[in-house]
């Protein structure tokens, strides 16, 4: 085939043209074998620039295009579309990166930069010459999504997808949906009641005809790939037949065994058979066998005796369900950093030092004290309450280095609500910086400080200890340089947000990336914030990083819209730049199977050859490097092409 390659050299304003002699580049390359057309333009990505490409393809009958401009991550898609519009197969359009790889790094040496730009473009010309005309790979897709975690993030994502007309499987490990938001009292900066805005959504997910709600369930195994996941779900034994139970609550009322309530953060007791809270969805109890007298001693059995519908089943076993879905949203939420790690604040041993979530329960109308702030040690109403920010956060030496983002705001809310309860009480907030970057947040903080007389002290607290029924607070005011000592009635710790305890295990199962602290990693920190790098997985909520409710909801809706966009096509289309194997040459050594990180290679036992599953292959190239007989090749990145590219680069 005669090659007729077009070269389009972009100035990128002065980004490239300020360093590289673009005119000379275009002229030189016009002489290169196989180049039929070569030109330069101020902004190739602009509409006139793209038209230049389209027109040249038609006018000069181009068989390939090299756009010499910026990184392919920025504009490869742009120019592929332009090529396709002029009836040139999009995989015959390539980018030669003479900006990031050349002009930006060689300012001050125009001659050398120009030479280098020419070489870079020559390599891409050689590549394009051998590029096959490919078509995207089409894979059948299950138009059904799974959402893991039914806190506010998971609830929002599930509702959005379901309302867009797709079926959703919503999986929650706890007996009820709602997550941490259900525990909160009021929410900043508007002070609307958390339960009032959340519970209607909880009911909606449970009643939505397109949502299959699976509470008290965990992900056991995931296989397959985007569009075609197979998920095995463990339905944990609740010892209550959920098909029969009518939620009358008689079993809970009569159960004699008690233990600390997780929902109330240990500030009250629940029964061994329980729903986490009165507004739980579904409103069906589960039996916690670790605290059940029947499971301990074989005696009791009260719940079974009183149940009017015979729903109690002590013989119930864990069950496994298989679900097929096309996309998975992970919304597994957060935990508080363990208080036991904070020795200087008593490590959890000082009764009147409480966590922020415990204080939420004390403020909550549905909490153990009915919304009256009473201290845990003696039930007295505290008159001096100290709030500490950055407990375990922003502490690279001892704990977590990152900012937990929401503590400044919720502690301000805590202090404010406390003051609304106890007008003659004093609230102190020790802070490093008060961070209020949200709509109406700064005003909220000003209100706390000015109208509610919350005293903000800039400085850290070095030590908390009990003395004469008080919690002694040793701190410092770094604005005055004075030591501060407060005999407080109660201290509230704004503990760092850390990923939920189960997040790491799940990430390993799903093969999605995390950062070093266990938060799920997004595909791009700015431009792809709700997608995982692994195709088909989307992220929502605090599992991806500390965030407040509005941000969680926005992210959840964004993740849902990504899923809907995926489901907008009948089939899933993916890049055809993947590995392929010449079956006649393959010796069946299976080395490639052992190196593939995506399990994308299957072995044909009959023919004794390896075969690439194009739907799974990510085109990472590992198996091509590993193949001892060079039988495995990457489409449009063959050994021949690489050889020609290297030759062009090394040519004098």
């Amino acid at each position, binding site marked *: 085939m005669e090659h007729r390659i077009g070269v389009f050299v972009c100035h990128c304003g002065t980004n490239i043209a300020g360093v590289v002699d673009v005119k000379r580049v275009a002229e030189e390359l016009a002489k290169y074998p196989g180049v039929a057309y070569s030109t330069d333009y101020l902004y190739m990505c602009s509409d006139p620039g793209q038209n230049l490409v389209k027109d040249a393809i038609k006018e000069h009958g181009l068989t390939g295009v090299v756009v010499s401009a910026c990184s392919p991550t920025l504009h490869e898609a742009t120019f592929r579309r332009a090529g396709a519009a002029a009836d040139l197969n999009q995989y015959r359009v390539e980018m030669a990166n003479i900006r990031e790889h050349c002009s930006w790094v060689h300012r001050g040496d125009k001659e050398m930069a120009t030479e280098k730009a020419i070489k870079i473009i020559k390599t891409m010309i050689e590549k394009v010459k051998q590029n096959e005309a490919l078509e995207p790979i089409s894979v059948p897709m299950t138009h059904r999504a799974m959402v893991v975690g039914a806190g506010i993030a998971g609830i929002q994502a599930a509702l959005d997808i379901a309302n867009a007309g797709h079926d959703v499987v919503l999986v929650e490990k706890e007996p009820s949906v709602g997550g941490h938001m259900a525990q909160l009292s009021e929410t900043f900066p508007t002070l609307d009641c958390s339960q009032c805005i959340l519970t209607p959504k909880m009911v909606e997910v449970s009643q939505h005809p397109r949502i299959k709600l699976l509470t008290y369930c965990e992900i056991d195994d995931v296989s397959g790939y985007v569009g075609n996941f197979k998920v095995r779900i463990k339905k944990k034994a609740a010892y209550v037949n959920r098909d029969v139970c009518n939620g009358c609550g008689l079993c809970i009322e009569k159960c004699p065994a008690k233990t600390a309530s997780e929902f109330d953060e240990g500030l009250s007791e629940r029964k061994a058979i329980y729903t986490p809270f009165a507004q739980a969805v579904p409103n069906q109890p589960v039996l916690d066998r670790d605290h059940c007298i029947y499971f301990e001693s074989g005696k009791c059995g009260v719940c079974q005796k009183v149940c009017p519908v015979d729903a109690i089943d002590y013989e119930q076993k864990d069950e496994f369900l298989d679900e097929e879905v096309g996309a998975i949203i992970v919304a597994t939420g957060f935990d508080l950093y363990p208080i036991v790690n*904070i*020795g*200087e604040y*008593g*490590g959890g041993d000082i009764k009147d030092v409480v966590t922020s979530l415990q204080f939420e329960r004390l403020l909550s109308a549905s909490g153990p004290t009915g919304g009256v702030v009473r201290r845990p040690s003696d039930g007295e109403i505290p008159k001096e309450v100290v709030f500490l920010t950055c407990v375990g956060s922003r502490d690279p030496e*001892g704990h977590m280095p990152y900012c937990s983002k929401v503590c400044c705001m919720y502690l301000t809310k805590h202090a404010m609500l406390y003051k609304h309860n106890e007008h003659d009480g004093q609230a102190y907030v020790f802070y490093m910086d008060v961070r209020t970057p949200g709509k109406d947040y700064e005003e909220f903080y000003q209100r706390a400080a000015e109208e509610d007389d919350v005293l903000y002290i800039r400085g850290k607290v070095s*030590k908390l*200890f*009990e*003395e004469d029924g008080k919690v*002694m607070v040793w701190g410092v005011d770094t604005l005055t340089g004075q030591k501060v000592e407060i005999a407080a009635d109660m201290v509230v710790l704004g503990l760092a947000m850390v990923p939920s305890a189960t997040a790491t295990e799940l990430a390993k199962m799903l093969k999605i990336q995390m950062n070093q602290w266990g938060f799920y990693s997004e595909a791009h920190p700015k431009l792809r914030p709700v997608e995982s790098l692994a195709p088909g997985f989307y992220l929502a909520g605090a599992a991806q990083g500390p965030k407040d409710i509005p941000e969680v909801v926005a992210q959840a809706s964004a993740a849902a819209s990504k899923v809907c966009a995926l489901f907008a096509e009948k089939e899933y289309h993916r890049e055809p730049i993947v590995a392929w194997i010449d079956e006649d040459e393959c010796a069946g050594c299976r080395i490639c199977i052992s190196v593939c990180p995506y399990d994308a290679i299957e072995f044909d036992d009959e023919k004794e050859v390896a075969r690439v599953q194009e739907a799974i292959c990510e085109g990472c190239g590992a198996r091509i490097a590993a193949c001892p007989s060079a039988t495995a090749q990457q489409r449009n990145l063959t050994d021949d092409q690489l050889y020609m590219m290297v030759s062009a680069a090394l040519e004098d």
Partner: protein
Amino acid sequence: MKIPYYPGCTLHERALDFDMASRECANALGVELEELPVWTCCGAVFPLTTDSVMDILAGVRNLAYASRMGDKVVTLCSFCYNVLKRSNKVIREDEEKREKANLFLKADTDERAEMESYLEQDYVGQVEVLHYIEMLRDVVGFDKVAKSLKTSLKGLRVAPYYGCMLLRPKKEMEFDDPERPTIFEDFLETLGCDVVDFPMKAECCGGFQIVRDEETAIACSQTVLSSAIKRDADLIITTCPLCLYNLDRKQKEMAKRVKGFTKIPVIYFTQLLGIALGIDEEHLDFSDNYVDPRPVLAGKKLV
């Protein structure tokens, strides 16, 4: 069982009682503390400068001596333990300083000439620095200590005082949680005492400030003592001669300053261990204490 032992200067001068009690206890537990035949001052304070190896040479030299005798060295004084352990960490982790220190050690001559052979091999951090309490826990075992006890300390309310040097800096000392340490509590429970947990157990006693700013040092010590006294401790134990000096000896000044100040005996932890092991009182030597612990101990019929 023999274990190399680095007493340090203070245990050969002011804290002879600590040295004697600790050796006696070790013997009773079947351990012979084998004092290094040659040793020097450890340097007393771990240097804050990081651009020189000179300041840690004293510590490294002692560790090199110890490396000829075994793979461990036991010490008692908090300062010695702090300096030796941190110097050892530098040698283990900083290649450049390791090389330089060894060049210095090879140049050692004069009165240590007889020790030339101590450098048959480079000192690369092969010795593990153990505090005596770690030796009791990890080498002897608290269970064996418990089995060797002759006298019950039941009913004796003891507050364990850690001070700073054993615990900090956390990542270098790796001794215990500096905010909420528990090793001495575990030890005291082994002895059968009533452990008095008090919030000031790891606060500073004032340390060397006693030399230039006595007021501050005494204020620090008094905070520590008052906290233990308030929680009805009968006595306080420590492992640092300087802490003991500030906490015990300075009670004389505190009594002058504070009306109604109640004195409390402060003794070394091995002196208490000695009592529990049934060692003769004269080998534990309480004569050097400003606040005599014997009346309290006699009250519990322990001496």
